[in-house]
């Protein structure tokens, strides 16, 4: 049991190393990758079954000293927050492999394996140095994949995403090191474990600066308004599976970081930043949506849509009440699914027509009914249609926002308008309308593609129809976290 | 009192020699100044009762280094017009001196801060025996490393100085 999390984190990397050592042929490589992803998925499900939602704090903790002199430990653990993201990653990974089943670039597969280790490691690690390591580990494969296998101005865009995110990570690293030093000053021993550092108290000014380091890293990753210019170029150049990871998982890690480390370390201080984040999030929500309207490139359009929804999630997190938090966490999961679905569809579109430009498309529903149906379905999920998971998250966040105040409530409710601004116009010009030169030879979904997409679609429907199946998994822990937070802040919300 | 006079003379000798090294234009003149400095240093060693160091300084520095330097200077045999054209030499020297002065002052202050008066010398201080004892007991490893370094320097000097190079970086 104790090793479970380690298996989950390092299995893909282990597979990658083994297969790389033996220089296996492509069919074995993809089979191995798929096997590792399925194993991780199975282990994650097993973990979920044994996960106790009512228990307080971290579970399945694995804590070993690693670099003893500096108190850096190998410290993994899981709670409801990380469980949700872990499950999404584990669920999406096999589907991504299925998507790239016939994609014979070997380096790509290795990068995906590494990426999975990086992402799950970042989600599960509770030691800040370890977290930082994984946080950077997951950036490198993305950099390589955009730079080597991307299209468009891929080199430039890969550099842009690398530089901007590394800038944030550097600020975060500085804060992490300072925290460790402060712990050393206070206790005479080094430690970077989250639970240790959370006990430190600073004077407000220091705390504000330290929090700023973390917030910068997360704001760039999310990305909040103003920190976002890497987003659209990266999404438009990256190959489809990395776009899916970027939007479905990595962007969520920014929010997750804000949640885990922002509130875990700087609960009281964050109220200082709360107005700023609220304003940025609300502005981003509308800004990205309006920006998306005139986008001709589907990838860029849904990059902005992703940004818009992540702003909403960030908004939900800083509102710190049960509804908003549950909504944010639920939305993290369902948005991961929906954006994975839509980006995979866009990838398939690109395979078929060689273009992701709306002006080239049209009439897909006439030539490929199944494709059109699923495409419209995922697009509507993005727009937050009831009956799909996206709606539940939005509803909860809106309700939570109204709990905080009418003005914030209205701001959050604009999400109802935000996505629809571009989704319907996009549908009008891609799925419907007359068939164009590019879509005339459009083939409908193959069995393999259906196999890739239907699990996502089904899960979206289930999350929409019966959210009560999933909420008990995280609600008690969120409640506990909120209580803890209320105690540290001193009752202020 | 005689020591003081000797010290003053040696100091004068040393400074003038050093200035000659830095200021004089012809390499041969520089070498003379260099020789004066090395001799003055040897004299200082003697004043400090470091008899073995004095010997070593005379033998190695004066006997070997200066001779070698002179040989090379003569071998190269620069013509007057081959000298570097240092039009702003004075400016450079003054500027560099100004820049160096604070550091020199700091250095001197630091050194002096840990120095008190000389104790009485024991018998045999600075003799070859004393140095040898210390060298072959406490300082064996540095000594051996230095011997390796000398060997390497010798080999290196030969390789660098060979006329036709086995490997030519430029071409």
């Amino acid at each position, binding site marked *: 049991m104790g090793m479970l999390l380690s298996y989950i984190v390092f299995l893909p990397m282990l597979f990658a190393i083994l297969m790389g050592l033996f220089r296996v042929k492509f069919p074995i490589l993809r089979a191995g990758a798929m096997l590792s992803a399925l194993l991780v998925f199975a282990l994650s499900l097993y973990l979920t079954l044994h996960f106790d939602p009512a228990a307080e704090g971290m579970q399945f903790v694995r804590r070993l000293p690693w670099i003893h002199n500096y108190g850096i430990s190998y410290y993994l653990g899981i709670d409801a927050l990380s469980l949700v993201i872990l499950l999404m990653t584990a669920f999406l990974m096999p589907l991504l492999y299925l998507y790239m089943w016939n994609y014979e670039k070997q380096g790509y597969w290795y990068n995906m394996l590494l990426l999975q280790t990086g992402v799950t490691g970042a989600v599960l690690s509770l030691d800040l140095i370890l977290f930082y390591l994984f946080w950077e580990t997951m950036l490198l494969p993305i950099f390589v994949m955009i730079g080597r296998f991307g299209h468009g101005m891929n080199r430039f865009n890969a550099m842009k995403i690398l530089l901007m995110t590394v800038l944030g990570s550097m600020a975060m690293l500085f804060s992490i090191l300072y925290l460790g030093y402060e712990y050393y000053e206070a206790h005479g021993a080094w430690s970077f474990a989250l639970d240790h550092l959370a006990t430190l108290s600073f004077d407000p000014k220091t705390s504000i600066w330290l929090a700023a380091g973390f917030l910068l890293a997360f704001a760039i990753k999310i990305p909040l308004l*103003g920190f976002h210019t890497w987003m659209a170029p990266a999404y438009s150049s990256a190959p489809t599976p990395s776009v899916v990871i970027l939007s479905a998982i990595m962007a969520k890690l920014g929010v997750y970081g804000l949640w885990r480390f922002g509130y875990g370390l700087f609960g009281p201080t964050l109220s200082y930043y709360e107005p700023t984040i609220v304003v940025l999030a609300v502005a981003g929500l509308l800004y990205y949506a309006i920006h998306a309207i005139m986008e001709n490139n589907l990838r860029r359009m849904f990059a902005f849509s992703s940004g818009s929804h992540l702003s909403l999630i960030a908004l939900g997190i800083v509102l710190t009440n049960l509804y908003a938090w549950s909504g944010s966490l639920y939305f993290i999961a369902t948005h991961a699914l929906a954006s994975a679905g839509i980006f995979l569809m866009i990838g398939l579109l690109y395979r078929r027509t060689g273009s992701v430009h709306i002006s080239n498309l049209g009439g897909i529903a006439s030539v490929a009914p199944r494709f059109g149906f699923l495409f419209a379905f995922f697009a509507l999920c993005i727009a937050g249609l009831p009956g799909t998971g996206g*709606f539940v998250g939005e509803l909860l966040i809106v309700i939570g926002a109204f709990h905080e105040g009418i003005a914030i409530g209205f701001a959050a*409710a604009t999400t109802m308008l935000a996505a629809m601004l571009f989704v319907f116009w996009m549908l*009008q010009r891609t799925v419907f309308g007359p068939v164009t030169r590019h879509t005339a030879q459009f083939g409908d979904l193959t069995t393999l593609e259906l196999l890739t997409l239907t699990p996502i679609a089904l899960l979206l429907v289930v999350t929409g129809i019966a959210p009560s199946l999933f909420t008990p998994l995280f609600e008690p822990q969120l409640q506990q976290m909120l209580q803890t937070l209320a105690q540290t802040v001193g009752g202020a919300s | 009192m005689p020591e003081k006079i000797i010290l003053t003379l040696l100091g004068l000798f040393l400074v003038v020699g050093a200035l000659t090294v830095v200021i004089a234009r012809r390499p041969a003149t520089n070498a003379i100044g260099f020789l004066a400095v090395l001799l003055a240093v040897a004299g200082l060693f003697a004043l400090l009762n470091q008899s073995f160091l004095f010997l070593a300084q005379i033998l190695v520095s004066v006997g070997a280094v200066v001779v070698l330097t002179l040989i090379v200077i003569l071998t190269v045999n620069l013509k007057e017009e081959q000298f570097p054209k240092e039009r702003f030499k004075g400016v450079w020297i003054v500027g560099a001196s100004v820049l160096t002065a604070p550091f020199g002052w700091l250095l001197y202050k630091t050194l002096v801060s840990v120095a008190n008066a000389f104790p009485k010398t024991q018998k045999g201080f600075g003799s070859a025996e004393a140095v040898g004892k210390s060298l072959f007991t406490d300082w064996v490893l540095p000594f051996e490393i230095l011997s390796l370094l000398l060997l390497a320097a010798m080999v290196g000097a030969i390789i660098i100085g060979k006329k036709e190079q086995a490997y030519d970086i430029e071409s």
Partner: protein
Amino acid sequence: MTLQTTQLLGWILLLPFTGALVLGLLHLTFPRTRRLDTFYAALGVAGPVVAAALGLKVLYAVASGADVTFRQTLFTWLSVGDLKIGLTLSADALGAVMLFIVTFVGSVIHIYAVGYMRGEKSFGKFFAYFNFFLGSMLLLVLADNPIVMFIGWELVGLASYLLIGWYYEDPANVKAANKAFILNRIGDFGFISGLGLLFALVGEGGFSFADIAAHIGSVDPAMTALVGLLLFVGAMGKSAQIPLYVWLPDAMAGPTPVSALIHAATMVTAGVYMVARFSFLYESVPDVGLFIASIGAASALLAALFACYQSDIKKILAYSTMSQLGYMFIAVGLGGYSAGIFHLFTHAFFKALLFMGAGAVIIALHHEQNIFKMGGLKEKMGLVTATMLVATLAISGIPPFAGFFSKDAILAHAFASGHTFIWAVGVATAYLTAYYMFRLFFVVFVAPPREKAEPAPLDRTVTWPLVVLAVGSAVAGFFGLPEAYGGQNWFAGFLHLPDRALHLGSGEEFLLDMLNLLVASAGIYVAYRLFARSPREAHDAAAWQTMLRHTLYVDEIYEALFVRPLRGLSRLLDRVVDNRIIDGIIGLTVGGYRVASAGFALLQNGSVRWYALYFMAGLCGLSLYILQNIGGE
């Protein structure tokens, strides 16, 4: 019996959804085949018909008990904190009536659609959508809490979107569908804001309608008013009231059964139903009610004016729908909830009938929609003419047809509540209604034919539903026979909504009715004089008439006011804000690095003594600093 009836609700909801799922999957599996069409039709019709039968049973059960509410919780939909939303269905009197309307009219139109849509491609998909719509509508109607209602509310919007854009090869139709959904979404923004606010106010005590009603009294009236307004914004969108009405005429791009079911009989009335559902809330804020009534009156009059100048048969009916919805909002706004629902009830029959009759004419004339190209159809299409006449009389408010009683109830209520101006608008609209409806009737059926076109024979599945609804349009009014005519207004008594008391003697009511009748007759007469003999599509006309024909250029104004600025803003954000300002700031730092690196590159000139100089300069600075701060001691 009770237990059984309760369980029926779940089945009623499940039937259409299951039908939609099966039909949809079959269609997606065999998208091109035509052999399954008969099966599709049977399956598509079976669900609604069975649901209608069950719905009738529920209505009977509700009616036979006194003040009973059937409630069935299928499962807990969501439970977070105080927010415990069960997928609970409930049928009180109001719900049962709506259930009956939706399933009954729905089934009839499903049957009609079998004939109407025959030969269309994607036959199965149509019935999948249609069943899906019916299920969503039932979810809306039967919901026991506002959240589930909102889900149904959005899903009917989706169905409407898909069905308006049915002929999606033509971008204009998809545009119409988009317009419908987007305007609905603007309304939904209001709705969900209202719900969020409402939950923040009373959520701790549970969030079903009954719980809200129990706790609403303790809330600050200003807040209640705000909630009421926000919810009504949702109703504006769904029920096509000013200013969110512009989608409804365009929605006629969908097939006629769609127009009949969604954009006449059921979905568009959801706003009225919602206001009636929240009657307990609106009861405490009469000012908001007055606002609703004013919007309703304005919409009624404006739509009636527009309808007088349209020549597309379906658009006339669309504006007429909007106008009748305005009537309903007058009623519910002024506290006459029963009257409003009663009009909703009768309207469902005659408006569905009108659309279906129009649809019959359209397919008979091979998809001709301009009334001035029709004419003289009464000889060739007797049955259609008769049923249309019944419906037209009903909507014009001629006794004893259904519309007379319901419209009368609304106008009497408006008059009695003292808002005479709204009443006057209502009466004027009644005149216009009679005028434009008979204009349509005379031009299409009575006037001499313009072109020699032989109508295609109609399928029996198309004609029989007309008869059924004609009967309904003729007799539905008697359910709400007012006291003035010796009835007991059974309908209002059955609904027992918190109606505002009405102080109107039988004599006064009788006089009002006579006035209405007179006005309607005048409208019919004018229409007869103008259009029965030689109808002309007026082209001349004064400026205001041209304006009306172009519906006051509202579409264009909206486009210029909202759509274009939004697109412009989007471009601006892309080209200026992102590329210039934000990337500009980033670029500035990059440029700073460039300049600095060029400077440092100059320093690195390759000459070692310079390097030594830099080194010494640094050392010099450091030494000076040490000497200065620590002292040379």
